[in-house]
């Protein structure tokens, strides 16, 4: 790796002057999460320091403030870049920062995929009376493990009239699931279209990147624009899928572990798509309105496109493990 850098690199390593950004970022981040926690506790009827139908304003205040700080922060960074303050070395720091950030996101998803694997391969079968802890089924008589889990242990046990313990909530399975319907019905299956859209968008952003490197800005703007559009369509389709799930499938967050894993995995993915699409949109605006990027220097664009590829890869994982298998 870059074990020895040429001396001239270092002369200009840009150490910014003291800055008000971090403290405000911390303050508003704090207000945001404090507001979220207060709101959630209010929603669930749990006490919190602040009560009332206004508490969502704390969250909104925090969020708006935080967005504003981020806006100023990124503007500052871009301005510094346009002034030529950062050396090539500092840019490498940004690159590393972004890559390791994406790695941390991978690990975040890893936790949820891990939960899915655990439930599907261990806990589920045990509850259903298979495997090492098959005896557990004594508590959930009548429950058979199947994935997608259409009947929760609680439902099965209640139906079989046994004595049941350890109930914490009402969990009843969905009426219909989202899994792969077979090749015959494939084309009416939304996730297929979502997959096509997202994979295409990974391609289009790649084309845009190449165009930029070739110095063909028109082409870059076009393909980047298309990417953003595809991202937005994806989000809409995903929203439609959720609507279907809630309205017609009985598939909700409360629908037992299938609903939990389904919504958390696709939900966090969808959330990341929103972020990624927003980042790309900003890059598109920077390109069309401000002409920020040059063939040599377009890290902002690159970072957003890496993020987009990452989101795409997570989707492939979802398609396999949440939808198909």
């Amino acid at each position, binding site marked *: 790796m870059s074990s020895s850098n040429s001396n001239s690199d270092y002369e200009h390593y840009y150490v910014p002057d*003291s800055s008000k950004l971090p403290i405000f970022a911390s303050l508003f981040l704090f207000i945001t999460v404090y507001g979220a926690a207060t709101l959630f506790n209010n929603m669930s009827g749990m006490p919190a320091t602040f009560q009332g139908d206004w508490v969502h304003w704390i969250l909104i205040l925090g969020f708006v403030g935080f967005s504003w700080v981020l806006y100023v922060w990124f503007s500052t960074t871009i301005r510094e870049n346009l002034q030529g303050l950062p050396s090539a070395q500092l840019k490498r720091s940004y690159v590393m920062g972004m890559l390791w950030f994406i790695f941390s996101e991978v690990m975040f998803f890893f936790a949820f995929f891990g939960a899915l694997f655990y439930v599907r391969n261990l806990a589920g079968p045990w509850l259903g009376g298979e495997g090492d802890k098959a005896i557990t089924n004594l508590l959930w008589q009548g429950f058979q493990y199947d994935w997608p889990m259409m009947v929760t242990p609680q439902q099965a046990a209640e139906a079989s009239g046994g004595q049941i313990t*350890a109930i914490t909530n009402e969990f009843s399975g969905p009426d219909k699931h989202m899994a792969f319907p077979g090749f015959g019905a494939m084309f009416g299956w939304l996730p297929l279209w979502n997959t096509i859209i997202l994979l295409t968008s990974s391609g289009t952003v790649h084309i845009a990147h190449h165009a930029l490197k070739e110095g063909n800005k028109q082409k870059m703007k076009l393909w980047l624009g298309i990417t953003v559009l595809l991202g937005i369509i994806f989000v809409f389709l995903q929203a439609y899928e959720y609507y279907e799930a809630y309205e017609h499938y009985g598939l909700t*967050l409360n629908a037992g572990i299938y609903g939990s894993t389904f919504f958390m995995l696709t939900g966090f993915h969808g959330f990341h798509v929103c972020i990624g699409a927003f980042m790309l949109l900003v890059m598109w605006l920077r390109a069309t309105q401000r002409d920020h990027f040059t063939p040599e220097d377009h890290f902002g664009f690159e970072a957003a496109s890496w993020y987009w590829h990452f989101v795409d890869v997570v989707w492939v994982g979802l398609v396999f493990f949440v939808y198909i298998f």
Partner: protein
Amino acid sequence: MGDHGPAKGLSRWLFTTNHKDIGTLYLWFSFAMFLVGGIFALVIRAELFEPGLQIVQPEFFNQMTTMHGLVMVFGAVMPAFVGLANWLVPMMIGAPDMALPRMNNWSFWILPFAFFMMLSSLFVEGGAPNFGWTFYAPLSTTYAPPSVTFFIFAVHIMGASSIMGSINIIATIMNLRAPGMTYMKMPLFVWTWFITAYLLIAVMPVLAGVVTMMLMDIHFGTSFFSAAGGGDPVLFQHIFWFFGHPEVYIMILPAFGIVSQIIPTFSRKPLFGYDSMVYATASIAFLSFIVWAHHMFTVGMPIAGELFFMWATMLIAVPTGVKVFNWVTTMFRGSISFETPMLFSIAFVILFTIGGFSGLMLAIAPADFQYHDTYFVVAHFHYVLVPGAIFGIMAAVYYWLPKWCGNMYDETLGKTHFWLSFVGLNVTFFPMHFVGLAGMPRRIPDYALQFADFNQIASVGAFLFGASQVFFMFIVIKTIMGGKKATDQVWESAEGLEWTIPSPAPYHTFTTPPEVK
């Protein structure tokens, strides 16, 4: 920029982008948290002085145990190491500052807010988190006090802080080394932090994931940790410990680095086995990802799992042993003097090893059926954490303080502090082995009569140890205020770039990188 000094007043600390300022902020924050967590520990020890309930009620006792663990782990030890990294990594590799200075300050300032949020729950209805620092579901979900939501979000932003801090450290190390400072020339403190930062980036998001699942279970009706809906409470433990075990090494690897700097200096002899130290650290980090379920031997895992996790855990003794042997061999045939940092480091090696031995005993799965959730475990982890992590930090402070503030600390006071701590700590934690083996469970506010004597001893030791830390604060402040001026070299045979710059270190160092041969 570059040549001017710090801003004046409060704004210096609020707005700074300087790695030394931020390091200082981290260190003071950490010390404050150490006192807070320590006071909680003293409440615990006071209650356990005698059988029966005397000072606090069980509800509050559980909150004390929980907050003690959380504050010490996330508030005292981790920020202290990040603070040391901030001060030292740039100076050790010849960098002008951290790679991303503004983000650096952000990483720090998140912490006071996060801890404000967590600690303030002590005063709200339902009380603070009371489910242990390991917050096992469903005690921490369905049965948790309302403050759990605030706790969850505090963990979220603390995690963000750690991740940003680690990204910064990695970028600094990979990108800002002075010419000629190859990886295999980096001081071991830099190496251990490099690896620690990877661990942090890999596991903090997993922690964020598991608390998010809790949040959903509590407020949005999911069933991750509820069998009735097809989930499993044990799933929580798997995810938590996937984070939790690497976390305990996060709390020890930087201390390994510190000791590896100090022992050679005072043995006047180069560190033995530099390369194997690096490989051992990397192996420990790698292994730390595949041993998590040794905290869960009694949850009813299938036997294949038990065996795998037992063997993998035992394996960690090998690279750790390599380190211990290297330190001892560094001392062998050296020319050893016993200044305070060295005393702390020697105590580190001895007492950490004792803690490691009890760790190895815990790793023996069948025996862990008897040890698990007793004070034997408490003894184990305090031996690796207090004379491990905390002594490592203290050794570092004594060792580098003259460089930071330009004054020598008073050696007699330092040694007194050492001996008081050393005695206090052993009196506190050694008897816990006995009561643990004799069957005293952990996390209980009251205990059966046969455990009384040793608990009494432990409580006395805790107050002695606590008092000596107040003494430590006094020594540090006294040194900062004045004292004998330190030379640039400070220690006659210390090696490394940080000793080539003046004491106290100027506000900006290495704005032009040094050339490393």
